[in-house]
């Protein structure tokens, strides 16, 4: 018994093992539960539900490696500061509760998405959206956008390197050079867009874009899906507290 508990704890605390266990859960279900949680937080009329979700999420963050914690929490800083700034007049006009509630909701939503983003790759996320019957064209647009970002990012890196090698001793290239780099990248993006369109036409593209990978519904999926009624019940209970 003790051994089993220790094994469980080690699974929770070892990042690699935890990630493997998480990856066995269908990302579509994880996305569903995340959307449900964000929706319920937005609908909640008091801070109890949002606060409790934040506690659970922070507990989950605490099991990550220090660099991962910084990475995940770092993503929440800017949106939280921004929303707090926007709501500052409300606090000054005598409604400090609004500032707290909305900022908490923003923090919860961004933290949840950052955690999801941290543990689910874009490929899995895109597949999950397909399984949830998002329009194929939307998923394809997102995939293409990611692909373009990576390829154009590499291209821009190479251009910057080339510029860096030629700018010896002079600093005024920055003004003319930045525009030039952006212009060249824009032209490259246009070229790629045309070539991709042609490549798709050459492969008889007719609007079908779906993944080959089929996931089986497993025990972990079932357990994960149980979270949905638990969260819903907790939401109903906390709303009745008011």
């Amino acid at each position: 018994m003790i051994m089993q508990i220790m094994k469980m704890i080690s699974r929770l605390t070892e990042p690699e093992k935890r990630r493997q266990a998480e990856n066995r859960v269908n990302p579509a279900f994880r996305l569903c539960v995340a959307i449900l949680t964000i929706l319920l937080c937005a609908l909640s009329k008091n801070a109890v539900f949002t606060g409790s979700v934040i506690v659970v999420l922070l507990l989950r963050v605490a099991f990550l490696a220090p660099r991962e914690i910084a990475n995940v929490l770092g993503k929440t800083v800017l949106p939280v500061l921004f929303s707090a700034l926007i709501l500052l007049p409300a606090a000054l006009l005598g409604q400090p509760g609004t500032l707290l509630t909305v900022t908490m909701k923003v923090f919860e939503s961004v933290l949840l998405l950052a955690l999801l983003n941290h543990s689910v790759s874009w490929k899995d996320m895109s597949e999950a959206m397909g399984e949830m019957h998002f329009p194929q064209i939307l998923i394809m647009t997102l995939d293409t956008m990611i692909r373009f970002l990576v390829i154009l990012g590499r291209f821009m890196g190479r251009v910057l390197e080339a510029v860096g090698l030629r700018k010896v001793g002079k600093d005024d290239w920055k003004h003319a050079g930045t525009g030039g780099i952006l212009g060249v990248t824009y032209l490259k993006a246009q070229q790629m867009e045309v070539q991709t369109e042609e490549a798709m036409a050459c492969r008889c593209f007719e609007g079908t874009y779906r993944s080959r990978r089929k996931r089986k519904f497993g025990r972990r999926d079932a357990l994960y899906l149980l979270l949905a009624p638990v969260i819903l019940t907790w939401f109903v209970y906390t709303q009745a507290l008011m």
Partner: protein
Amino acid sequence: MLDLDHVTFSYDGRPALTDFTYHFEMGKCYCIVGPNGCGKSTLFRILNGLSFPEKGTYRVDGTAVTERAMKKKEFAKELHRKVGFIFQNAEVQLFCRTVEDEIAFGLQQLALPENEIRERTETYIHLLGLGELRQRAPFTLSGGEQKRTALAAVLAMEPQVLILDEPVSGLDEDGEKWMTDFIRSIRGPERLIIIATHRHELSEAVADEVLHMTKEHRLLTHQG
């Protein structure tokens, strides 16, 4: 199989292909050689129905490929099913999220039965040695791996004509050797292969006929 009759093409008045006449026969492998900018890529665009002759005609199995004909979905689909094209830069040709999806993409567009899609995908994954890369995103692969993926994706559609634009450019010595051997292995009486290349080693190793193009965008000679 493919007939070009006095085909001329230009980009904004700049000639790209001038009075090109040739008949490509089924079962043969052709290599087109010539300096940069002589019109090889333009020729390939015309062969794939991506550009259309300003003068002259291009026919596939006796049917003229025109801009008007290509606007008909069924005609365009039939042409692209018959003629497979590997771009010089394979990176732009790969747009799905995994290698496996990439190979299945064309087959899904052809609305083949699910079990056939699965079978063909597996066949070409193994034929091109992509087993370990099947769940990788194509844009994360090396140049050689991208070429192999593009080949698998196009070959899975089992085209009668295979057009390769500079198939060995950007490949190392082993990659070049692999590509040369592979092209030799897929030659056959049921397939027409047209390759643009600068490498004499490749054209000597695989071509039944070598076509020379000039700086003036004309077909100069051909040798059997």
